[in-house]
């Protein structure tokens, strides 16, 4: 199978594998009857390093935002190690505009469990923690039920499927902190600490949970593993674009007629996703701006979307990134100053406060943007805002600082006229000192 993203007919023929139409897959009997846990069985017949190799060759890249090659990450884990090793599955899903992992918990939880087990087998891990944001109480219960069913069927726990392989899978519930989606902060949260990110290096594969080697993968990433094992790396690496292959869960929200999560091969044109899958903009209005991958990614101009595709390479070329593939569409009547002020407020509230540039900088960006919102900003405030953003970027322990700076930087770069217009209509305009 070689799907060309430009061919719409073929696109519609994509048979979904992460979230199929079948709405009964959450029931373990149904999942087992439809080929469930066969990938686990197949993996257990392979050598662990063969499983890692399969994932490496598939070219799977992490779906949590950073697009890091999953197989490579796994290969960083030490082999023949006498201390415990851990797997953390990241289901914190707090990036504004992202609501994909939730669909996996709800509709295909066993795929996630199966992927978790294969990952544990490949890396010689005996304990996995699935970290889920506290707000997802309902979905935690759904996943817990699936885990309990898997335990009852001998698929998790001691001597899985009659082999020597044993692994425990636990859910750890967060309690409301965006920062805990950052991998080192997530580990601190599991350890019972405040969710402060850690300085890297050392990287988690050397010093992770309780000082032991740890791998952290996103829920969607892990859910791709059984697919790779079942169909083979060769098949998988040909889905979508070569450098960032596979099915991807794309969420579309904001000003569209049919918002939701759509599974598709990577590399589908952004405009096609917005108009064909998400039903276009209400009232046939034009698009003013699009955030392609969750609120941390650089904002794109609506009139420059032609040719941009939903994959890491294409979005990088367009000056943004695929992030968590949460597309937010804004129509022509959107007040972008209000949008960017709200985004800045989010990062101000969620900054953990550890690093000064982020703690103080996010506060200042929010304050300055509020001046624009109240029509009280001066011309110099545009460059002041940019200056603050530039001084946060790259100067913090974790990527939250960058995530706070990028939307502001890209908004000024792409929509400077909106800021200037606010200055011109400022209430303080007539005051001459």
């Amino acid at each position: 199978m070689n799907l060309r993203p430009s061919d719409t007919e073929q696109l519609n023929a994509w048979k979904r594998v992460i979230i199929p139409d079948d709405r009964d897959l959450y029931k373990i009997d149904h999942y087992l009857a439809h080929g469930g846990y066969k990938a686990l069985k197949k993996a257990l017949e392979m050598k662990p390093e063969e499983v890692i190799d399969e994932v490496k060759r598939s070219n799977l890249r992490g779906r949590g935002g950073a697009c890091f090659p999953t197989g490579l990450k796994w290969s960083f884990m030490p082999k023949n190690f006498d201390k415990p090793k851990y797997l953390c599955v990241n289901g914190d899903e707090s990036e504004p505009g992202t609501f994909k992992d939730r669909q996996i918990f709800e509709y295909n939880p066993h795929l996630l469990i199966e992927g978790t087990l294969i990952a544990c087998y490949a890396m010689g891990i005996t304990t996995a923690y699935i970290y889920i944001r506290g707000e997802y109480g309902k979905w935690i219960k759904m996943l817990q039920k699936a885990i309990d069913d898997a335990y009852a069927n001998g698929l998790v726990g001691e001597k899985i499927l009659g082999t020597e392989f044993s692994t425990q899978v636990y859910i750890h519930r967060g309690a409301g902190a965006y920062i805990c989606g950052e991998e080192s902060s997530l580990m601190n949260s599991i350890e019972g600490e405040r969710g402060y990110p850690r300085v890297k290096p050392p990287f988690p594969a050397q010093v992770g949970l309780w000082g032991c080697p740890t791998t952290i993968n996103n829920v969607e990433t892990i859910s791709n593993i059984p697919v790779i094992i079942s169909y083979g790396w060769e098949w998988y690496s040909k889905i979508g674009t070569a450098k960032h292959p596979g099915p991807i869960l794309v969420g579309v929200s904001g000003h569209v007629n049919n918002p939701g999560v759509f599974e598709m091969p990577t590399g589908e044109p952004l405009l096609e996703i917005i108009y064909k899958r998400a039903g276009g903009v209400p009232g046939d209005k034009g698009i003013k701006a699009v955030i392609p991958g969750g609120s941390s990614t650089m904002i794109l101009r609506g009139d420059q979307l032609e040719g941009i595709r939903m994959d890491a390479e294409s979005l990088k070329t367009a000056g943004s990134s695929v992030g968590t593939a949460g597309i937010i569409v804004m129509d022509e009547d959107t007040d972008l100053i209000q949008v960017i002020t709200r985004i800045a407020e989010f990062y101000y509230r969620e900054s953990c406060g550890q690093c000064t540039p982020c703690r103080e900088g996010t506060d200042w960006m929010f304050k300055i943007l509020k001046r624009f919102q109240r029509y009280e900003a001066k011309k110099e405030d545009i460059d002041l805002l940019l200056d603050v953003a530039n001084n946060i970027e790259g100067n913090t322990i974790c990527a939250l600082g960058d995530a706070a700076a990028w939307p502001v930087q890209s908004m000024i770069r792409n929509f400077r006229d909106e800021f200037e217009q606010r200055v011109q209509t400022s209430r303080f305009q007539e005051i001459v000192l």
Partner: protein
Amino acid sequence: MLSESNLNKVEQLRKRYPTSQALVLPVLWMVQEQEGYISEDSMKYVAALLHIPFGHILGVVSFYTMLQKNRIGKHHIEVCTNISCMLRGSVKILEHIEQRLGITVGETSPDKKWTLSEAECMGSCGTAPMLAIGDEYYENLTLEKIDKLIDNLK
């Protein structure tokens, strides 16, 4: 302070983690579910139960927004006002709820029935605007839906 069944659960949880500090979040959740909030006495209790300094527990409780240090209303309404919900009218939703309940964001009604909060993205962007009451999500909100919801909870 924790009920016997919860204490049993704590013992079960100990097997999941190599340190007792890792139980801080799960146990604080238990306290909050049992008591409705986490008082200073509860924090001292958890500190003693897990052999962790009180200051650490206080630090954790103040860090995570879902952990409540004060008694809140019976129904805690959290309205998402982040970008996807904002684009789909969460500002009006919030104003309407404020009007209906006679309280503003951050307040608890005098009869301790309602607490109203503004929340960050709760992962419901495809069904925006939304609000949450406890673990329950109410999605694709309209003003009529909110009226009905409040009437039903009254």
